[in-house]
């Protein structure tokens, strides 16, 4: 088992190195660089920037050096000092810029994830056990609606309802008086009272999807012979269902749980833009548009790291959950 984890860790490092390099190449692919954005912005304001000043800017940002030198300078900082570099557009370090936002994104995403699980598993299990009952049809109906309605649309509707009927301040994660305040109990409560709207919005599609998956997985297991064996043993119905088919039906879920991790900080971009939430998605979008390369590179690096860690965690979780996988790991 330890050998397996060690081998996976080595591959993770290689994968991340490759991803960071490719990311850098991709950022460099479009013509121009950050100075192009600066010039364009200046021209939009009717100003003209002399060539000497542009050259100065390029030197300042290190954009005049060869591509490989830029890449290795950046990656050396990341690996050796944990320094993600400077954001050109914001003129501050990437770490200070995204730290708070990544945290809020994770809070929002983890909260929506728990919301999704808490709602979807019981409903999915109920739907399968009472297949073709009124409750099952209702769950399926709501589920399809949940999957079909785009999130931004739901966000707009929820904002309207929140504003019209509950008098809540629309958008954002904080009321105006707390937005720039330091963290205290009041701010935390304010965050919680704002958080439920994006949680519901972000969670609805996921809930709908997971209900369908749970129901389908469980229906596959429900009539297998081992369930009949358990019933023949004299186990009470609910106990045997939870111990045998429900348990089996969760295996596919464990193999995909790792994919949720990167979604934790980037999944809610569109909703965040619509509801102007101070999370990381809108920041990434802006950075890509203005070729703010260290900011984009760092974002992608963080996302990729979470992806590979998530994949590994889900493999480990599946091994813990399913002995058929576990024994294969132990052999080598």
């Amino acid at each position, binding site marked *: 088992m330890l050998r397996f984890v060690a081998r996976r860790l080595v591959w993770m490092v290689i994968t991340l190195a490759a991803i960071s390099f490719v990311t850098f190449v991709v950022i460099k692919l479009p013509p121009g660089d950050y100075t192009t954005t600066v010039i364009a912005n200046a021209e939009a304001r009717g100003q003209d920037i002399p060539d000497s000043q542009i050259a100065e800017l390029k030197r300042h940002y290190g954009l005049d050096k060869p591509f490989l030198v830029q890449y290795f300078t950046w990656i050396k900082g990341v690996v050796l000092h944990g320094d993600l570099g400077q954001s050109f557009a914001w003129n501050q370090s990437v770490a200070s810029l995204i730290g708070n936002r990544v945290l809020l994104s994770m809070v929002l995403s983890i909260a929506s994830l728990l919301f999704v699980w808490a709602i979807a598993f019981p409903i999915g299990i109920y739907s399968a056990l009472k297949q073709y009952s009124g409750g099952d049809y209702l769950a399926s109906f709501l589920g399809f609606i949940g999957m079909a309605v785009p999130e931004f649309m739901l966000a707009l509707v929820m904002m309207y309802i929140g504003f019209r009927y509950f008098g809540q301040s629309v958008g954002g994660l904080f009321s105006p008086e707390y937005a720039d305040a330091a963290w205290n109990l009041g701010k935390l409560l304010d965050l919680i009272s704002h958080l439920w709207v994006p949680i519901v919005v972000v969670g609805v599609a996921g809930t709908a999807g997971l209900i369908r998956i749970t129901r389908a997985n469980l229906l596959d297991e429900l*009539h*297998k*012979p*081992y369930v*009949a*064996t*358990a*019933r*023949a*043993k*004299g*186990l*009470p119905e609910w106990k045997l269902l939870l*111990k*045998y088919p429900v*348990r*089996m039906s969760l*295996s596919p879920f464990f193999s995909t749980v790792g994919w949720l991790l990167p979604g934790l900080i980037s999944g809610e971009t569109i909703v965040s833009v619509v509801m102007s939430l101070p999370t990381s998605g809108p920041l990434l979008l802006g950075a890509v548009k203005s070729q703010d390369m260290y900011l984009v590179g760092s974002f992608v690096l963080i996302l990729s790291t979470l992806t590979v860690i998530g994949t590994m965690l889900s493999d480990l979780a599946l091994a813990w*959950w*399913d*002995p*058929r996988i576990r*024994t294969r790991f132990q052999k080598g």
Partner: protein
Amino acid sequence: MQPLLEVRELRTHFELSDGVVKAVDGVSLSVPRGRTLAVVGESGCGKSVTARSILRLVEKPARIVGGEILLYDDAPDTKPLDLLAAKDKRLRQVRWADIAMVFQEPMASLSLVHTIGDQIIEAVRLHENVGKQAARDRAIEMLDRVGIPDPKRRVDSYPFQLSGGMRQRAMIAMALSCRPRLLIADEPTTALDVTTQAQILDLLQDLQQEFGMAIMLITHDLGVAAQVADEVAVMYLGEVVEQGPASAVLSNPKHPYTQALVRSVPRLGLRGKDRLVAVRGTVPPPYERPTGCRFHPRCDSFMAGKCDVTVPVRVRSDEIDVACLLYGEEER
């Protein structure tokens, strides 16, 4: 002598959208104490459904629509328990403690994500007030008894780590762990190779000697029935057409259907000129049962105006109960 279990006029129907399939339609048979009853018949004659109906294990769309299943107590002259009328709780007590079952597919009928020990211990602790350690000791003892090598280690194995024959042995160990009075074995050797099949049948006979339980063996294989059965019940189209001592039924069958079945089995010493005779015709479509005697369209002794009109009742001829219009007149 009082039988252990008596099935009277059992009817289990499949209520499908195209109509009702009367899979079991008036089955009556009795299981003698401490002996082996083999229930034989072609595929689709309703033998498995009969077996499952005894413990009320049939699932939708199948439904038990009538009959009695009487389980007699060991003490003579006590009122039998009708399993079809029993409350769920009482039925669960009977399951495994009085009547246990072994199914056809040993791989599918054990849970793959629980150890064999866990599944045996669960059954023991469900029906007997014993501690974990005592139940585990019982599991190890049973695994040893069914001939699984190194049972102390195997008790913690998962079913997928065992071969097919070993899995079926583990299943038998589990079935006998609560010392049932009746073991229902539904095609227990069909999925196994011939050598393993012979070993499993020997094992069942040894265990019967040791524990003194009755066995109801469901099989389509007359050879298997001849090898282990004390009594044989022959089923055709959802009813028992003949039941009697194995030696009598197999060597001197009364019902034309049984006669045809016995003729269709290859025997040693058969010469080239003695061709095997298949049962004439085919099984009629499930939605329409023939009128009168259900076997009459395929019967060599068909009597027009009689067999297609009158439903035969069971009569005793020599030691055999047979439902055929050829018999009865003189005995009645």
